[in-house]
């Protein structure tokens, strides 16, 4: 507890708000005692974070979600002035499940913060471990006074709702920030207004219609999540980032450099002078500065030893090298901003020579059929990453690839007791061997989830081609995303690409509707990707044995029907299983 008070004091000193804060919060005796104890605690205490880990809920208040995702990078902290105290309104003093006391008890207005996203509630919250829970984070303002402290916009956007006690602001990318329990008479905005970060919205209060609540801001982040749909996500680490920026927390800012940005890789280093021997993380923001709409943020440990850094920094293991994302190898120029992440508290700092830029030609398209991944839910179920795994190609080149069956909505793995070492992927009524654990790993298939099927059912399915060693996605100018694959060639179903492949000598022959071999060859030297010749392809990027299908030995039609039914049943069971997760 003493450390918590110490942290409060320290934060306020940094912003010159100590006097105000003391007037509003701290009884004199407690303060002097705290300062004394804090001084004794020394530097170690000073390094203690102002927040408890994400997902660490009050014991007995539910199961938290340890989700370190910063869903709103660069977000402005949503209360105008600090300090602020995110913690539970229900399980602390003044709450109906909390210890005796008042909502204004000093321990409610003290560090460390505590997550209460996913705290026990009754209704659906698909991202919470229990599937139900609290949708956001409760935040107490600097003092236990209502209608005094301002709620401000965390991100730019339009005011899309003003309810009896709620204000919603939706950004152009569809992310919505919800601000609840403000005092209606203090509203500073109207429905439809465009707001900027830091703009006043309403005063923090205890308004919940005709049922007052405690004085706090209930803050939600809601956005469209692949695999789920619109969902409330954990706001905790976004709040931490915004608060560090607001309060100027941290010590010396970290530093670093972007040394090289080209098609081989993105190279640089990062170091925190407060912990010079320790490796820290670097943040790379593609498509704009950190927090810009549409920017994609990658975190990588800067821990690669570099000889040149040893003398320069007095410590060697601070380098990083990041591959250029496949989806950005599209011939266009792309900018990358690089930041060093503070070892402890503190906002990330952009490094020297950032931003950099690169322009890389796309690789030729591998041969195969294109199979539509019909929605983000399927991408999520298959754990596919368009950012890292997708080739962006001209629409004509994509259209030239023969189209195969849609990718199933989720991967289903099966094995039979008769051959427990062989794992099969059940794919559109075929069984496809997963020949190597490395391939399963490359596709992020969960072998632990493999189902056991009766041998007669499993082996009655026609055998499809083995899974390719790596997933490769492709997208033209439209939004459709395809996975490149070998044709499945389901018996009894017309599949033009199967006929083409079976009649050809293999993937060396261009697939039907695609460019000729000569075209492919010439396209490889142009910026326009086209089908690559199989000879130039690494293993797994094209079928070497035509269709690649090996049919079961003339399974009877009845057996096929049974197996197909079993597959469908398993598929439904798989979906049920996913629902339960």
């Amino acid at each position: 507890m003493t450390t918590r008070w110490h942290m409060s004091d320290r934060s306020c000193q940094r912003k010159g708000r100590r006097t105000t804060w003391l007037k509003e919060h701290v009884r004199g005796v407690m303060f002097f005692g705290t300062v004394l104890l804090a001084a004794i605690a020394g530097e170690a205490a000073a390094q203690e974070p102002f927040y408890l880990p994400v997902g660490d809920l009050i014991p007995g208040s539910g199961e938290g979600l340890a989700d370190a995702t910063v869903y709103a990078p660069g977000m402005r902290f949503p209360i105008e002035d600090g300090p602020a105290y995110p913690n539970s309104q229900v399980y602390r003093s003044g709450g109906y499940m909390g210890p005796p006391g008042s909502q204004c008890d000093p321990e409610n207005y003290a560090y460390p913060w505590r997550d209460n996203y996913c705290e026990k509630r009754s209704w659906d919250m698909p991202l919470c471990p229990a599937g139900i829970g609290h949708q956001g984070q409760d935040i107490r303002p600097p003092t236990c006074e209502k209608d005094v402290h301002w709620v401000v916009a965390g991100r730019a956007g339009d005011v899309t709702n003003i309810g009896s006690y709620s204000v919603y602001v939706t950004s152009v990318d569809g992310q919505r920030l919800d601000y609840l329990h403000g005092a209606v008479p203090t509203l500073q905005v109207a429905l439809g207004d465009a707001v900027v970060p830091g703009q006043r919205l309403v005063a923090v209060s205890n308004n919940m219609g005709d049922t007052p609540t405690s004085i706090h801001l209930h803050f939600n982040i809601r956005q469209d999540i692949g695999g789920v749909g619109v969902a409330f996500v954990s706001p905790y680490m976004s709040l931490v980032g915004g608060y560090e920026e607001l309060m100027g927390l941290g010590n010396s800012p970290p530093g670093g450099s972007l040394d090289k940005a080209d098609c081989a890789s993105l190279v640089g280093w990062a170091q925190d002078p407060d912990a010079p021997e320790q490796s820290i993380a670097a943040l790379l923001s593609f498509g704009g500065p950190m927090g810009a709409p549409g920017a994609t943020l990658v975190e990588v440990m800067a821990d690669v030893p570099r000889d040149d850094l040893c003398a320069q920094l007095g410590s060697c293991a601070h380098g990083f090298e990041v591959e250029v994302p496949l989806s950005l190898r599209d011939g266009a120029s792309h900018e990358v901003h690089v930041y060093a992440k503070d070892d402890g508290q503190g906002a990330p700092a952009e490094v020297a020579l950032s931003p950099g830029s690169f322009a890389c030609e796309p690789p030729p398209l591998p041969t195969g059929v294109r199979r539509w991944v019909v929605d983000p839910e399927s991408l999520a179920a298959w754990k596919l990453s368009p950012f890292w795994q997708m080739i962006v190609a001209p629409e004509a080149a994509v259209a030239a690839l023969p189209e195969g069956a849609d990718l199933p909505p989720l991967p289903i793995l099966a094995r039979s007791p008769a051959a427990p070492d062989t794992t099969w992927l059940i794919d559109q009524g075929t069984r496809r061997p997963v020949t190597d654990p490395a391939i399963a790993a490359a596709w992020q298939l969960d072998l632990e989830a493999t189902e056991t099927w009766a041998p007669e059912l499993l082996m009655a399915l026609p055998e499809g081609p083995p899974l390719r060693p790596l997933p490769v996605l492709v997208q033209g100018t439209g939004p459709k995303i395809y996975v490149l694959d070998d044709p499945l060639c389901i018996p009894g179903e017309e599949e033009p690409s199967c006929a083409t492949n079976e009649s050809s000598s293999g993937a060396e022959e261009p697939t039907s509707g695609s460019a000729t071999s000569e075209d492919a060859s010439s396209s490889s030297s142009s910026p326009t990707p086209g089908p690559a010749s199989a000879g130039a392809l690494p293993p797994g990027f094209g079928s070497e044995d035509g269709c690649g299908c090996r049919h079961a030995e003339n399974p009877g039609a009845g057996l096929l029907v049974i197996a197909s039914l079993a597959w469908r049943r398993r598929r439904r069971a798989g979906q049920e299983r996913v629902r339960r997760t």
Partner: protein
Amino acid sequence: MKSLVLPLALCAALPACDVTAGSEPAAARSTTVAAQTPSRGRLVAGERVERVIAWPDPASRDERTRARLSPAALAAVAASPVPVLAPADPLWRPPQISSPRTPDGPGFGFSLATAAPGRTLTLHGSRLATLLADVGRHEGPERLRGVPGFVSANEGIVTATWIEHGAAYALDLECASTRDPACALPALRAEVEALVLVGGGER
């Protein structure tokens, strides 16, 4: 392993993948890099992917509800990149609708807000999803508009979410009195089922 093999395999095997062509290295940024293959790291806030919208037949638009929309709302509907649904019940005031676009041009959804005595309704449609590395497929346990969905309630506000026409939708109901049956779950379900198509995707 996955992170290393793909680019290396592609670039090593494909003549067209000239890793230096078109590059724009920063001048005088030479450095001594320890032998190390590039890594990927972690996507901090996920990655964005667009949903593919299955546009409903324009003939299925509810013209009576459209007739209640203001010119500004109709313009927002026309510009919406996802099908716009709206409450048909005239008890609700004519809604305010927005479908903002980015400076580069594309838009990713619409928002609708309306009110009736003692309560407000908001509806949001999205075609821009965020993929998160550790979130798989979750189908809602409820049945809303014939598809799986989720129903939630917190702070007295009830919420329903579902995926329809390829877009992700969310509807919120908020009452001035948290005990108002107009914001109970049956009322929420009824509002969701009563939504009608008013248009979208016209420019």
